[in-house]
């Protein structure tokens, strides 16, 4: 019989080895899938994992990795802090949408004023909007004991409908020939979130994502609050005796993660996405949950996981483009990658031992 024995410390070598193993396993399983579908497995794997980094058009796709990964990393680093404490915000998608709407509201109200303060005010409004949306589950949990998992998830649906309402109603572009969607903020210089250095893809959201990784790393490993968070996640009762107030932690963790999600929404709507539409939420909030776990709730892991997912998105597009691989095949492949990464993670947390039977 085989049994699992928890490791007291995650083995450092395995920390690195398991994701590599998982990616290799995906390549093999995916290769078989591609071969069955009648595509060259080697070419497909190379297109997805290699070409975005070193292929003929890599000069364009490398910066795009940052653009695609930035919101995922920004949201996931906030979520991971809460997940460490056992506080489950799975409504980042809703906080992202509300952040985008609040930030855009500042820009649309100020339009066409050219002042310098507009973009910073939008960032604040975006973060505040996300934060406020995240405070709803925090308050309801602290006051009434309602599950923050479920409340935050329900609020995603509400946020999606608010976005649709905005796109067709109050925020509709008055010069848009009656079509839904707001003005395009990319074309409003005071509100735009453009590429900071040409050709790098880096906009303010990328900068914010990098800062978030650093800040959450500092918080979790160097700050007393990070210690409290980890303690609360590992041994909630002991943490309470040590003077950690659970209510404060809930408010802090939900507040932090939702403010970051709201900021991510604002950076997207002012930059790459450009406008509020009924589909402004494109799923970054949910994908970020996967990124947080793939990154083992560690800031550096999240950085790498975000980049890896971005790689498969962009590689998947390239595979459609160059090999005529259907989008569905790419989607199945991504599903497999997630399954393998989540499954192999077991090895870092447990070791396999043979059961000793009497």
């Amino acid at each position: 019989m085989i049994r699992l024995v928890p490791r007291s410390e995650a083995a450092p070598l395995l920390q690195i080895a398991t994701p590599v193993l998982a990616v290799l396993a995906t390549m093999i399983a995916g290769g078989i899938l591609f071969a069955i579908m009648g595509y060259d497995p080697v070419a497909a794997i190379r297109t997805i994992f290699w070409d975005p980094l070193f292929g003929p058009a890599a000069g364009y796709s490398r910066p795009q990795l940052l653009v695609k990964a930035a919101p995922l990393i920004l949201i996931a680093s906030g979520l991971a802090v809460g997940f460490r404490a056992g506080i489950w915000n799975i409504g980042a998608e809703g906080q992202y949408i509300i952040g985008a709407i609040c930030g855009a509201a500042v820009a649309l109200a100020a339009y066409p004023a050219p002042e310098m303060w507009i973009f910073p005010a939008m960032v604040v409004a975006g973060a505040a909007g996300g934060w406020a949306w995240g405070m709803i589950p925090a308050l309801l949990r602290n006051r009434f004991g309602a599950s923050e998992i479920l409340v935050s998830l329900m609020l995603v649906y509400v946020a999606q409908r608010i976005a649709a309402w905005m796109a067709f109603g109050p925020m509709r572009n008055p010069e848009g020939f009656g079509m839904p969607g707001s003005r395009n903020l990319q074309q409003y210089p005071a509100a735009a979130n453009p590429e900071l250095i040409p050709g790098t893809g880096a906009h303010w959201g990328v900068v914010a994502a990098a800062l978030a990784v650093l800040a959450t790393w500092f918080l979790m490993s160097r700050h007393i609050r990070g210690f409290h968070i980890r303690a609360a996640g590992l041994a909630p009762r002991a943490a309470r005796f040590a003077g950690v107030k659970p209510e404060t932690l809930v408010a802090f963790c939900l507040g932090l993660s939702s403010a970051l999600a709201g900021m991510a929404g604002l950076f997207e709507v002012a930059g790459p996405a450009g406008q509020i539409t009924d589909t402004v939420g494109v799923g970054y909030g949910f994908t970020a949950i996967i990124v947080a776990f793939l990154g083992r709730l560690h800031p550096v892991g999240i950085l790498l996981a975000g980049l890896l997912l971005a790689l498969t998105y962009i590689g998947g597009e390239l595979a459609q483009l160059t090999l005529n691989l259907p989008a569905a095949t790419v989607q199945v492949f991504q599903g497999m990658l997630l399954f393998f990464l989540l499954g192999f993670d077991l090895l870092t947390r447990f070791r396999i031992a043979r059961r000793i039977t009497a």
Partner: protein
Amino acid sequence: MNRRQLIASVAALTTISLAAPTWAQDEPLKVGFIYVGPVGDGGWTYQHDLARKAVEAEFGDRVETTFIESVPEGADAERAITQLALAGNKLIFTTSFGFMDATVNVAKKFPNVKFEHATGYKRADNVATYDARFYEGRAVIGTIAGRMTKSNKIGYIGSFPIPEVIQGINSSFIHARKVNPDVEMRVVWAYSWFDPAKEADAAAALLAEGVDVILQHTDSTAPLAKAQEAGAIGFGQASDMAAFAPSPRVSSIIDNWAPYYIKRVGQVLDGSWTSEATWAGIGDGEVVIGEITEAVPAEVKAEAEALRDKIGAGEYHPFTGPLNKADGSVWLAEGQVATDKELSGMNFFVEGITATIPK
């Protein structure tokens, strides 16, 4: 450094690196397509992909086509379009309204690539726009609907309250009324282009209201399935939906992009392509009325086909006065024809429709 300089410098960078491998005459012309849905949606994207295949069939090895499907509108679209341009596509069709700004942005960076954006209104030297006069087809099926209804109530499932859909509702109502002065129209907004369960519910709601002919501007066959259950009739939308013929699907309004795509690819091949706004209809074969089945009496079929041919020949415009707006004010005087500008921003119902447009 301000934003404009920034764009200019990016453009300069990309043009230098990309202008080098220019397309030589003996190589096939690469044509790219960006789709908002999957090619298997059986509706909007499916029809664009049929037209792509028609381009391949027409030009053989003189062209090479590729597509990226299920591209979300927004940031992902801009990247996908850029990838197509970088891959050497010299003509790129972006087939959803929501790709408009992304198309214009990418076009600035690739002055040597030609772009065709569907249903939008922003053009540039290398960005053309194209759209179909679906309202012409709606006039024909509105005529059939007006003749076929026994309850004198026809229903319309709208997707979103945008000009294109409003044109369709008005056109079908005007022509149903023309052949049947007692006809009433019920309108339901689904707020989706494709949501089978909701479309079925919308159809059921119309049927419960006594409607016996359903027109739809949403892409699934769910309303036809509901109509069949209730013994009502309907029309195929976007694609022919022939699986439901001869009834409940008595005819259909088909998006046929093939003639336009073939024309434009041909113009790039012979160097005569220019940026323009095309709004083609029945006459150009872009809007096609699917076979009118035997469930429709011969004289109604003949009447509908006569109208179709008159519109196709340019002898008749579906929006010809006298027409009043729903609020009773005069829109078009006797013999006056609606301008394209009026139509492309249409945000009102014509007199006789009691439904309201959500604001």
